Structure formats: structure tokens, C-alpha cells
């Protein structure tokens, strides 16, 4: 059963219609339909292999879809992806950081790639917010996994994206660190960001999001928003639809 989230009054910032993606013979996404409004915080849950990461990769334009249509800010992703990418920040399983460069050099490089005009101020602002100022000129390879994850989140925010796609952003972070970073992600620059994130932690999903999507076997099997976001309720639905909690 698929419970549809409420209709979006301002029109979706992300619109996905009939999205499929195959890898050789394996159908990773099977006809995904979802509209996400500006400012929504959407948690994507699902067991391993459900298609969560693939969905985020298609939305970020890291990979193309096999069929279907993805529209970001009314622009079809296939038409103008280089420009659309300007509105998207991505945090992945991997840090996207060059190990042999310092945090500052990594951020400088990505600022240049995203045409960030106030580069110096922006780098210092973000580094300060994520609490990494004392390690600004340390090589990334000398930083702990948690610190690298902080930098990874900072890197995704550098160009002030309206949309954030976070694939298990809690990797290497304790709950306290994630909560403080979440606050930065949400409020930074006064942008009411649209956030789509995957996680295996159901209670975290309910705390951080205002909409929960459950995926299984490449399909969205449940989509619930607002008052229905109760961890116990979600856990029961998740177990019923996916066969249990991992």
C-alpha cells in the first residue's frame, strides 16, 4: 500500500515520474513517482538493496535513468544537468575529498568548480560552522572519519544549494555531532532547504524529517508526512512492508 503525502501547494521542487534504472539485468528502480516540495525534509528508509542510493544518484545526476523523467526546479535533468547541479549539494557514502590536499585546498577547489564568488569568506564561514577551523590546513588524510564526514557535509553546503541529497549522512558521526550539523544544514544562510536523506535509523528519520518514504525492491512502498511520523508507527509499517528491521 502506498500512502501519498499531501499535495504540494507551491509545486514540487523535485518531481520524479516513472523512474526506472537498470544495472545490466538488475532492475534497481521500478517506476518511482514522487513529488517533493520546497523546504521538505524527506527521509528515505529501506533495507539494503532497496534502491535508496540509486534514487539519490539519479536525482543528483551522478547516473542517468533508464526511463522516466526527473525534473528539478522545473528543468528536466537530462536537458541541462550542468546548470541544475548548481542547486544540488550531495553527501555520499564517500567523502568526495582529496586525501592529499588540506581541508582549505579541497574547499577552494570545489568553490572554484561551483563559481562561489566570495570564496575566502565562504570557506571560513563553513569551516567555522562545522567546527573544523583548527584543522583548516591539515591534510584530509590526517583527519578522523568523523572529521572527514563533517568536511564532507561542509563541502556540500559551500555553494549554498537549495536541495541537499544526503546518503547516510550519519556515517562516522555520533548523535550529538549529527544533531548540531543538522541544525547548520537546515538553517545555514537562511535557506529553507529541501533535504532528501537516506538512513537505516528509524527514530532518527522521524526526528529529522517531516516526511518518510519507505522503499523496498526498487519501489516506494509507503510515503507518509506530517502527523503520521511516529517512530513506533513507522517501525510497524516498515516491518510489515519490508520484512523486518535490519
Amino acid at each position, binding site marked *: 500500500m502506498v500512502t501519498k503525502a499531501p499535495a504540494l501547494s507551491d509545486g514540487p521542487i523535485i518531481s520524479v515520474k516513472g523512474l526506472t534504472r537498470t544495472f545490466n539485468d538488475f532492475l534497481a528502480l521500478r517506476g518511482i513517482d514522487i513529488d517533493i516540495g520546497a523546504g521538505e525534509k524527506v527521509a528515505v528508509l529501506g533495507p539494503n538493496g532497496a534502491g535508496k542510493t540509486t534514487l539519490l544518484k539519479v536525482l543528483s545526476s551522478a547516473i542517468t535513468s533508464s526511463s522516466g523523467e526527473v525534473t528539478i526546479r522545473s528543468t528536466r535533468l537530462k536537458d541541462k544537468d550542468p546548470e541544475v547541479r548548481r542547486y544540488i549539494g550531495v553527501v555520499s557514502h564517500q567523502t568526495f*575529498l582529496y586525501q592529499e*590536499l588540506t581541508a582549505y585546498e579541497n574547499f577552494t577547489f570545489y568553490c572554484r568548480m561551483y*563559481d562561489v564568488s566570495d570564496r575566502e569568506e565562504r570557506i571560513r564561514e563553513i569551516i567555522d560552522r562545522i567546527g573544523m577551523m583548527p584543522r583548516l590546513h591539515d591534510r584530509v588524510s590526517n583527519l578522523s572519519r568523523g572529521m572527514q564526514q563533517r568536511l564532507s557535509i561542509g563541502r556540500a553546503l559551500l555553494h549554498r544549494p537549495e536541495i541537499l541529497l544526503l546518503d547516510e549522512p550519519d556515517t562516522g558521526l555520533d548523535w550529538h555531532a549529527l544533531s548540531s550539523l543538522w541544525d547548520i544544514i537546515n538553517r545555514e544562510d537562511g535557506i529553507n532547504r529541501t533535504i532528501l536523506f537516506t538512513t537505516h535509523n528509524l527514530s532518527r528519520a522521524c526526528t529529522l524529517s517531516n516526511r518518510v518514504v519507505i522503499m523496498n525492491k526498487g519501489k516506494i512502498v509507503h510515503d507518509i508526512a506530517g502527523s503520521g511520523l511516529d517512530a513506533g508507527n513507522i517501525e510497524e509499517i516498515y516491518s510489515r512492508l519490508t520484512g523486518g528491521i535490519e
Partner: protein
Amino acid sequence: MNYFRKVSAIVWKDALSEMRTREIVFSVLVFALLVLVIFNFAFGADETAMNSIAPGILWVTFAFAGVLSLNRSFVQEKENGCFEALTLCPVGRDAIYVGKMLSSLVFMIIIEIITLPVYSFLFNLNVLSFEIIIITLLATIGFAAVGTLFSALAVNTRVREMVLPILFLPVVVPLLICAVNASGDALAGESWGDLFSWLMLIIAYDVVFVVASYLVFEHALEE
């Protein structure tokens, strides 16, 4: 302008990484110098044989050193998903190609600048001539252009160190043949007129393969 700013950012990042690790230039340079020394010991006594195979030795050294260098170029990008991050930037895949190609070109030219005087000393040949420099530069452009494309293709495979030379060397053989012949003529003291046909072939190869690689690169990145 914006396009070139991004291309230069990629080259700047690669140069900075290389200055930190010295992975490409240092290891490839050691390899190139070892190859020259081995060939020098193998053929050193026979001056006639040496003169006829010297251009071949030069380009065998450059070719294998170039393959080693190209192998590393995208491996660094692959670590920690940096290559994926590059493709997520608001920049066309063609700019990524041009940036990576220029980086490879610069690294290969640095290796050649150091290798050529050593080659000249070991084989007692005057390679520091204008003709040899032009031939080397033109052939290296084609080499880096095709090599960058195949390097991007090979990096997604498990046995990338083997895949790159298997895919790449057959495609670059025409360029190497032209470069060996042009270098041979130049070392024999032939005039520009005699070199002209080989140089034109090298330039034609460069134009065709730079354009083709530039156009095909986007598709090479698709998983």
C-alpha cells in the same frame, strides 16, 4: 572564461596533489630512466645498431612511461569518490576531459624534459634540437588526448593497470610510428621538408583524436 576557470581549477588541483605525493612524476621518471639505462647497456657497444634503433628506444620509453602516468591520473580521482564529485559539479564533462588531459600533458612533458638530456647523454645523440622538441610536443599532445579518454574508461574496471595498455596502445600505435620515423629523420639530420609528411600525419592524428576524445568522453563516464 568560466569554462577555462574550471579547467584551470582541475589542473591546479592535480598539480597540487602531485606536488604533495610526487606519485606520478617521480615514479614514472625512475621507470623511464631505468628503461634508458637498460637499453643503453643492451645496445651500447654496437654503434650502427644504436643509431637505427635509438628513435624507437626513445618512444618506447615515452610510451610506457606515459601509460604509467595515465594509469595514476584517474586512480587518484576514484579514491573517496572524488571523480563522482567532479561529475556532480555544474560543469560539462568536456571541461573535465580538457582539465585532466592538460594535467596529463603537463606531467608527461615534465618527464620528457628530464628524460631527453639523459637520453642524449647515454646514447650520445643530439636530441636537444628544435625538430625533436616539436615532434615530441606534438606526439605527446595526441598521446595525452587519447590516453586520458582510455584512462577514464579503464578506471572503472577491476584490472585497470592491464586494461589501459591493452585498449590504449593499439590506438596510439599510428602516432608512435609517425613519431619514431620523424625522430629518426630528425636525428639523421634531415631537413624540415623531409620531416614534413610525418609532422603532418602527427598533426592530423592530434586533431582527429583530440576532437573525437573530447566528444566521446561524456559517454565514457556513463556507468
